[in-house]
């Protein structure tokens, strides 16, 4: 990513260049991005385990309501498209950043965050609705798995929102530097990842639930 600004980019790793400040940072930031990628893969496993639990317990409703009975698809469809769009807008933010447009970057990040916030709003509304219908985490194994899986995804999105806000503040203070650039790259990776997870939540929990 620092290629654009680092004239020595071709020579990383060569001892003679170790002192070069920009270069040093370049490697460091790249390493952090790689580390974050690995973290995302551990998150894949984490969600995989939650999915496995959900699938295994999906029939154990203990006489209580089933998912198909209570899920209201329209809201879910809306949140799905919202999240898809926010994945797209976070990509646009990245493009703006690569063009060196700080303002565009911040604006698109704000749009992404707002979309994310409305996703969370819809999810909270849905949960409240479900609780009113008598489905809580303690209702049955099915609902335990449901709330945990969907809720863990929601928690991830919420963390992403806090983080994005912090990042927007940092960007407005410091502008586009190798460090903030890496941070934006990372958060957009995270955001795309959450979108992917949601697609599977949408398919396996909701679509299959109402089938």
């Amino acid at each position: 990513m620092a290629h654009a600004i680092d004239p020595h980019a071709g020579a990383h790793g060569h001892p003679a260049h170790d002192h070069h400040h920009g270069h040093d940072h370049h490697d460091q930031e790249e390493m952090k991005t790689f580390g974050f990628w690995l973290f995302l893969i551990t998150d894949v496993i984490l969600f995989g385990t939650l999915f496995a639990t959900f699938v295994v317990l999906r029939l154990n409703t203990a006489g209580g309501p089933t998912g198909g009975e209570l899920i209201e698809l329209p809201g879910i469809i809306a949140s799905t498209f919202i999240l898809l769009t926010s994945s797209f807008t976070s990509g646009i933010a990245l493009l703006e950043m690569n063009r060196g447009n700080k303002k565009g970057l911040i604006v698109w990040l704000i749009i992404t965050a707002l979309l994310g916030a409305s996703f969370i709003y819809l999810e909270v509304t849905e949960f409240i609705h479900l609780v009113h219908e008598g489905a809580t985490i303690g209702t049955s194994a099915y609902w335990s798995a449901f709330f945990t899986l969907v809720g863990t995804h929601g928690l991830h999105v919420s963390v992403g929102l806090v983080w994005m806000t912090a990042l927007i503040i940092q960007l407005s203070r410091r502008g586009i530097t190798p460090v903030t650039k890496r941070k934006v790259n990372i958060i957009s990776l995270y955001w795309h990842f959450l979108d992917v997870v949601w697609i599977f939540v949408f398919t396996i929990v909701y679509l299959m639930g109402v089938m």
Partner: protein
Amino acid sequence: MWHKIKDFSSEFFVTGDPLILGAQVSIAITLVAIVFTLTYFKKWRWLWTEWLTTVDHKRIGIMYIIASILMLFRGGVDALLMRVQLAAPQLEFLHADHYNAIFTTHGVIMILFMAMPLMFGLFNIVVPLQIGARDVAFPFLNSLSFWMFFFGAMLFNVSFIIGGSPDAGWLAYPPLSELSGSPGVGQDFYIWGIQISGIGSLATGINFVVTILKMRAPGMKLMQMPMFSWSVLSSCVTIMFAFPILTVTLFLLFLDRYLGAHFFTLDGGGNPMMYINLIWMWGHPEVYIVILPAFGIFSEIVATFSKKKLFGYKSMVFALMSISFFSFFTWAHHFFTMGSGANVNAFFAITTMLIAIPTGVKVFNWLFTMYRGKLSFPTPMLWTIAFIPCFVVGGMTGVLLSVAPADFQFHNSYFLIAHFHQVLIGGVVFGYFAGLYYWWPKMFGFRLHEGLGKWAFWFWNIGFYVCFMPQYALGLMGMTRRFNEYDFDMGWQPLNVVSTVGAFLMGLAFIFQVWQIAHSIKFLKKETSGDAWDGRTLEWSIPSPAPMYNFARTPVVTSQDDWWEKKQRRLRGEAELPEVAAAEKAPLEPIHMPRNSGIPFIMSTCWFVAGFGFVWDWKWMIVLGLAGVIISMLARSFSYNTDYYIPVDEIERTEAAARGAH
């Protein structure tokens, strides 16, 4: 008022048992003594700036090792108590509930708070030095990992005097570990203690994968990396994929207990068997996580003390990687007797046996490294040689267990106990001891007393066989694990007595080790060459203990066993290779270093507070702790002044001092 306090404290503190009272008193005395010493010698500031906030991988490594030795002591005392209880039929030494708590804490502490941190300690000390790096990839995260482990372990250990220990077995099968089976707070301490330290382990896993893949010295190809670093890579890859499963599993159990969810409960459609399925998906890879680095250590030591190149480097690498891959496909061998049908059992029996193949290849490669070598036997090598027969036999009994229909007879018996102690002690403990003895001079700059080390070695070995061989026999006599007492007429007593004697021999061995360390510190025998064993890899090319920045100039690597080759060239009087010579003659440059930070310590303390709050369900404390965690994270995100440069003249001074010590 007074009454209230009394009621509260009788629930809060564990009371009524003289053993525990004694422990409480001695813990209190120790704490007071520590506080007093630190204050008296005005060491608080030193403690904070030099240790608690350090991000130096070598210091973090040392802290890991100290913590793990303390945990070995506690786990060992637990073991000795159990062995005393089992020495005679129907002994009234420990009550059932007390015994149950002891084997639970023994298992958890030994594996999660002894083996894991000892392993991480060695990772930290050795890996950056071995691959020619200045630190790990993420020094801040590394410090965070350590403190998460430390406070997780403390949270778990606190249950001993506050609230009561968990007593549902080291893997806490529900429904016994649910509120219905364990209404007390012990199980919550278990969940949060392991959860918090587990997150630290996960971070360490990622950290070292990145370190190894991205921070190798220029020229060091993956296929030239020292075998220990390879084993760390395989172990950390396994951590990355296994630990998230543990996180989820414990989290689900927590939801059951705390929010009344129904994942593993008896009622509400919960299925306890799902927990067993999930926990072993982590639990099985976990045992390979701890054994793989031991394999790496043995590989280093065997080559060093045979004065010979490691045999079959490529197949060693391949074996390591395939073990960590296959470890994810065998978990069901821990519950062959769950009645999942012949298809499941047959599949998992086969996958389990497959692991014997790469493991066997490693054994042969070690043997053929020694073959045509020139063997010498200082303590690290002794442990290595003792390891081979012990682990081979333990592995073989593992293969016997993997024969599914036969496991119906072995399962949960002392045969199993003997198997896993043989691989855990003969493999993991021997391996880490070997590593500890081997790298001790590098860590501290002085040598350990060899004579006392040999006494310890023999006592450990003899004690081990005396303790655990009879347990195979006991298993075949039908003695099941987790029995706190047995009847006279089973005829189990004689062998149990033998086993107890063996356990105490190991206890003696441990005392020898403590003595050895104390003795060596007192009669400090400085190790000044930096190359205590005529080693082969990069860590031996720098002074002991390594300076803070490790390498004054980034080394350039041209071959496997690079340091050895370089020494050979020198011996032969050859000129240095041009690229190496160029790098060595290059002028010193300021070194980029990470700054110390108090955030990891503070953030982990906050996790401890939150965990403690969850255990007792004190909402204010939970909120306080979690808020602290979030603030720490944001504080980190907003701090940009996280590194600095060591100026050239300071490097020159340090190097001169190190050389001067020659």
